[in-house]
């Protein structure tokens, strides 16, 4: 089509389709305080649940006395494991093939573990009753170090006694969960043994927590009259919750309705199934009334899913010229008291084996040992695809270490080893097929944008000034080039609890030419109601403003696996495009009928079908929609609807080049990030405004994780970081300013070429900020210092290097 008239441009603009910075439709409600989050839900006669939690990290529960609590006016019930046992609900399966106590069954395994569940008239009475439940504990030895746990005689999981194999193979110690391996160990060892240069390092990615501003919660409502259970909650995967609820409760799945209302941020925290949900369901069944449970912030940080806690021992080898020849990695993974990682079933270490990163590494091996300790369970993907941030941090630190051993600039080392554009699709040594990329172009653009050589010169001058005693601040340049792996995933190898990780979209076009589309995903701030309508607008020629996007209600939405791991755009976005194409195919037949020509004689043009070669003869989508309901068209059913279930043929591989500059005060450990440049390539860009917002947010979470955020325990297993005083969430004052940029390398296998972006900035941002801290001290010989790089730990680096005189 050669019609480039302004009229056609207007029609394109009117759609607000792909590529435009459409303002978000969600914001109209949110800016007026009309969001509907789970704690906003009120039902007649609703009761409130609250937990009695363990003050100890490891103890036997000798007795629980609920008499005083039950005697309190307004208390309806106090549930303990004994009450749940007859229902078989005192334990529940985890997403990782383990099981987890719903309420303490004989012992507690981490501080904050759920011991009893109080149900009361309101949350004040419930809190009072929690204080009145008397629990007698007998303390047991505490294991907080995964290395010690593998040596210890103390058995944490007595319920697994004698089981020498678990869901992921052999267990070689009572506190061992699995060993998962990928790659060619022998060949890797051989390369390392012969190598000209080897860098070896232990890299710890500390335990942290997604900590969305809204905590987790639910309202369970069992309607005993019609036998239906309705469950509202903070669920990133509502359909999976419905299936799990059905399997656990025995209620048939059609009698369960799960609704995720607006969600106040998820970041992985709201993927799992928590004891609060199970107890609330049971309490509603027992009392016949709706029961609300909303955790407080301390409970959120201490008991719901943590992230990371990976001890990564790496060896990387290269030629003297800097060509990487092999990579070996062994991870000791601290999973806490139960293995509740939210990973696809066959991947107990998630997609950690993307850890060869953006580099052409001929041979590699990864082994991951999962270990039980007396810490909260979890291991979720906090603003990243499954264990991908760990992998990216690992390889980007190893690259820096190798550059040190080679005495080479690490930007140049990256360039030498990047997978070349002509190597895509690229098969990595650890088994992935990277779909597309152009790393050299992105890297060169980034280095030019920040004036890399000038920065290095400034840094060198600073080092000299420091040595002359003229400044106490060093300057670090943080480099990071990352490759994400998102969009899980192909059903042939990705499932959660047996459910293949497809996703879905169902579209109904209304007679007057507007539409509703429902998806199996659920937005937690990503703006799906805005961006999915844009995909559809471009596919079916109906303005985005005339398309309602609905998610989160399992009674109406098609089955999907939910939103996490940057999978919404790669999977549900593809389903949306393909469902749109089904609509368009039928619309083409209707248009041809109306125009009295053969189907093949019409073609789609923005918002209409035109007769080929005679574009003045057309039928708009609005006219076609009406005809679908108004005309009897031979050979066609009435109506205009479509459903698509999309099983992606591969993951998508977004990538990016991030560079920051940071001043580091060697005396106080304070840092100031002076510049952050983030170039993202997420394939086809749906809404640049939303992409930029996602990048800002992900970078900020990365900044927080690197510079101070952690879940820390003392040797008794007490969580030291249970409130926002100690758990670092930066304010507007600490948060750096960001500059964003992009290249655009579409995914060849995605219907619109989009790759997903929400988690890239965290994956790339963590190594960037951490490398900047390390880089500031590189001239003084620093090799590795574990995150978080808060003031005292940076001070300790300087102290260790003798910089305090």
């Amino acid at each position, binding site marked *: 089509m050669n019609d480039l008239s302004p009229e056609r441009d207007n029609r394109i603009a009117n759609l607000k389709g792909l590529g435009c910075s459409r*303002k*978000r439709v*969600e*914001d*109209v*409600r*949110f*800016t*007026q*305080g*009309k*969001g509907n*989050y789970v*704690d*906003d839900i*009120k039902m007649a006669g609703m009761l409130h649940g609250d937990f009695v939690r363990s003050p100890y990290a490891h103890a036997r529960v000798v007795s629980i006395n609920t008499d005083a609590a039950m005697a309190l*006016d*307004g208390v309806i019930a106090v549930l303990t494991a004994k009450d749940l046992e007859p229902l078989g609900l005192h334990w529940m399966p985890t997403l990782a093939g383990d099981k987890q106590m719903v309420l303490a069954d004989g012992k507690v395994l981490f501080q904050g573990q759920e011991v009893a569940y109080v149900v009361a008239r*309101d*949350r*004040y*009475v419930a809190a*009072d009753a929690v204080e009145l439940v008397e629990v007698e504990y007998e303390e047991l030895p505490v294991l907080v170090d995964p290395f010690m746990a593998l040596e210890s005689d103390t058995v944490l999981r007595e319920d697994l006694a004698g089981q020498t194999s678990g869901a992921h193979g052999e267990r070689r110690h009572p506190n061992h969960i699995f060993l998962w391996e990928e790659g060619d160990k022998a060949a890797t060892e051989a390369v390392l043994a012969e190598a000209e240069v080897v860098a070896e390092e232990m890299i710890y990615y500390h335990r942290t927590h997604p*900590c*969305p*501003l*809204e*905590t987790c919660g639910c309202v369970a409502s069992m309607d005993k009259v019609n036998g239906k259970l309705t469950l509202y909650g903070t669920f990133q995967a509502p359909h999976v919750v419905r299936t799990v609820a059905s399997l656990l409760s025995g209620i048939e799945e059609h009698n369960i309705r799960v609704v995720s209302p*607006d*969600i*106040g*941020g998820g*970041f992985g925290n709201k993927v799992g199934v928590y004891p609060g949900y199970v107890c609330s369901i049971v309490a509603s069944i027992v009392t016949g009334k709706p029961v609300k449970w*909303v955790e*407080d*912030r301390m409970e959120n940080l201490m008991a719901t899913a943590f992230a990371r806690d990976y001890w990564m021992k790496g060896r990387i080898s290269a030629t003297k010229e800097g060509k990487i020849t092999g990579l070996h990695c062994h991870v000791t993974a601290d999973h806490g008291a139960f293995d509740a990682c939210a990973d696809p079933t066959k991947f107990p270490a998630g997609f950690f084996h993307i850890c060869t990163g953006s580099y052409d590494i001929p041979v590699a091996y990864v082994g991951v040992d999962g270990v039980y300790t007396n810490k909260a369970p979890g291991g979720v993907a906090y603003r990243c695809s499954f264990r991908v941030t760990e992998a990216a941090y690992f390889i980007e630190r190893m690259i820096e270490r190798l550059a040190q051993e080679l005495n080479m600039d690490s930007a140049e080392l990256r360039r030498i080893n990047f997978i070349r554009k002509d190597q895509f699709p690229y098969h990595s040594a650890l088994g992935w097929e990277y779909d597309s990329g152009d790393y050299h172009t992105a890297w060169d653009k980034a280095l030019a944008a920040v004036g890399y050589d000038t920065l290095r010169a400034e840094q060198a001058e600073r080092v000299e000034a420091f040595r002359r005693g003229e400044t106490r601040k060093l300057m670090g340049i943080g480099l990071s080039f990352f490759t994400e792996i998102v969009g899980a995933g192909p059903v042939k190898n990705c499932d959660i609890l047996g459910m293949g990780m497809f996703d879905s979209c169902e579209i109904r076009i209304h007679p007057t030419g507007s539409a509703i589309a429902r998806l199996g995903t659920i937005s*937690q*701030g*990503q*703006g799906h109601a805005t961006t999915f309508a844009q995909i559809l607008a471009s596919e079916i020629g109906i303005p985005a403003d005339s398309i309602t996007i609905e998610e989160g209600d399992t009674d109406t939405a098609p089955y999907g696996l939910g939103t996490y791991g940057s999978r919404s755009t790669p999977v549900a976005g593809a389903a949306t495009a393909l469902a749109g194409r089904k609509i368009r195919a039928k619309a083409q037949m209707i248009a041809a009928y109306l125009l009295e020509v053969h189907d093949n004689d019409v073609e789609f043009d923005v918002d209409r079908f035109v007769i080929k070669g005679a574009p003045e003869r057309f039928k708009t989508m609005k006219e076609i929609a009406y005809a679908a309901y108004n005309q009897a068209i031979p050979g066609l059913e009435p109506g205009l609807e479509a459903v698509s279930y999309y099983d992606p043929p591969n993951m998508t591989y977004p990538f990016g080049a991030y560079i920051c500059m940071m001043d580091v005060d060697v005396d106080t450990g304070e840092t100031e990030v002076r510049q952050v440049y983030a170039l993202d390539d997420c394939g086809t860009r749906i809404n640049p*405004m*939303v992409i*930029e*917002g996602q990048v*800002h*947010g992900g*970078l*900020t*979470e990365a900044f927080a994780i690197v510079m101070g955020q952690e879940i820390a325990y003392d040797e008794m297993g007490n969580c030291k970081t249970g*409130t*926002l*005083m100690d758990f670092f*969430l930066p*304010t*507007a*004052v600490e*948060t750096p*300013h*960001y500059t964003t940029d992009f290249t655009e390398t579409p995914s060849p296998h995605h219907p619109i070429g989009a790759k997903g972006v929400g988690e890239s900035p965290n994956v790339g941002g963590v190594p960037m900020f951490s490398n900047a801290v390390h880089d500031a001290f590189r001239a003084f010989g620093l090799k590795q210092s574990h995150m978080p790089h808060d003031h005292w730990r940076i001070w300790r680096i300087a102290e260790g290097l003798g910089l305090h005189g």
Partner: protein
Amino acid sequence: MSKKMQITLTVNGEAQDLLAEPRELLIHVLRERLNITGPHIGCETSHCGACTVTMDGKSVKSCTVFVAQANGASITTIEGISTPDSLHVLQNAFREHHGLQCGFCTPGMITRAIQLLEDNPNPTEEEVRFGMAGNLCRCTGYQNIVKSVLAAATEMSAAREAAE
């Protein structure tokens, strides 16, 4: 449970009389008794600001105010700053500049920003960052929030000058 007391509040311009335990937190009274669910609960230790409301001309964290303390006070929440037909400049600015994502912090952010601009109608970027530092956001990284507040300040200043 302690004795309930008679509480009188003016909330978004409407007089409210209710019986409540003195220990009830203002945020709970607003949300549970008055069904004003715009202000949210994020941290409960006065760090996050999701519960921010305006009380007698001051931005306060309503999770750290007992309803008994608030007795007699005039309170404005996000619900009280505009009508759907006539949004506040800040509400439009947050949408225009993508100053929100999940929306959970937004009512507190906007409520706080209104008071900030009352106290300081022409703030610098640094003053906005400092003046909004009692409100945490996990989604946006603040850059677009700051942009929204600065844009609203400019627009409100221009409107004031035009009116003079």
